[in-house]
């Protein structure tokens, strides 16, 4: 029984803290689908909150890396992210160029400075 629970636990967690808190907003949209436009104040605020959370997660993934990424030194990770972002700004806002340059910078820096 305990072994079964241990197998199923990650999937229960997925449904309870991943699926349900995410899906509730889609279902509310289905039930309350009446005029709410992209510029309404509550939408602007909620988009700002979501953007800030995602940005926080992005910064944490770069600064407090784990696993294989942690074998590449912190200054290299930060410099690669900055290079990628600058390349995106310079190359007419191309997401592809930005990601490619950031990845190349990380690979080069990691190759030179990894321990």
């Amino acid at each position: 029984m305990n072994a079964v629970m241990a197998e199923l636990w990650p999937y229960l967690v997925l449904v309870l803290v991943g699926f349900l808190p995410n899906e509730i907003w889609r279902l509310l949209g289905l039930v309350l689908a009446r005029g709410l436009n992209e510029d309404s104040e509550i939408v602007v605020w909620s988009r700002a909150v979501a953007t800030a959370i995602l940005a926080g997660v992005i910064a944490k993934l770069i600064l407090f890396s784990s696993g294989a990424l942690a074998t590449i030194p912190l200054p290299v990770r930060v410099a690669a992210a900055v290079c990628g972002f600058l390349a995106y700004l310079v190359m007419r806002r191309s997401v592809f160029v930005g990601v490619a340059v950031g990845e190349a910078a990380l690979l080069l820096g990691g190759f030179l400075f990894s321990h």
Partner: protein
Amino acid sequence: MPAPNTFTSSTAAFFGGVKSAVTSVFFLVLMGTYIGIGALAHDFGLASWWLALSSMLIWAAPAQVILISALGAGASLFEVAIAVTLSAIRLFPMVVALLPLLRGQGTRLRDLLLPTHFTSVSMWVESLRLLPAMPQQWRIAFCNGLSVGYMGTAVVFGFAGYYLAAGLPPLFAGTLLFLTPMSFLISTARNAHMMVDRLALVLGLVLGPVLTAMQVQLDLMWTGVVGGTLAYAVHRLREAAR
């Protein structure tokens, strides 16, 4: 590409949607994104089928990244649920904007359940672009096909990233792991059309690590609420000053 609006059956419309998905620019975006998320799931010790199921049930890359990294870092389940739900509010206005395009005379609520679940940035942008030129009767089937195409792409490349990260030497596995923060940083900046969004991005980048370093409880929630509300307050003040 002109909108394919000359379907003869729902099945044809569905496969028209699938074809539209795998030939659109979002195919490449999803490929890169989910290779990165696959590597992330491997890094945090989750099963590959768990990841596949999360792609199908959650179907929102930001929420998945938040869920995987927060669970992996040992956050409390309550905190994870709050962070996921705060990241998902944006889905609400997207569904509200999409459904009027799908709803016609005689459309039943249950016909709209799948498109509602499938609503995500990629499908939403393409639906709003392609559906208006299409006869109403084919729209739901096309929309479902489009979404199945995108979701299939995400699941397949999630597995690819997962097993690549498992088999590659650390430097290359690290490069795969870097895909998630790098691509999300740039795509979030690209989606930030208004000043309020750019400010929220910068505040989140600063507040996230600072609150973590200070070991604040529920740090992700506070990053979102404090950073987002500050950005919004500045936006209102600027509007008032005009």
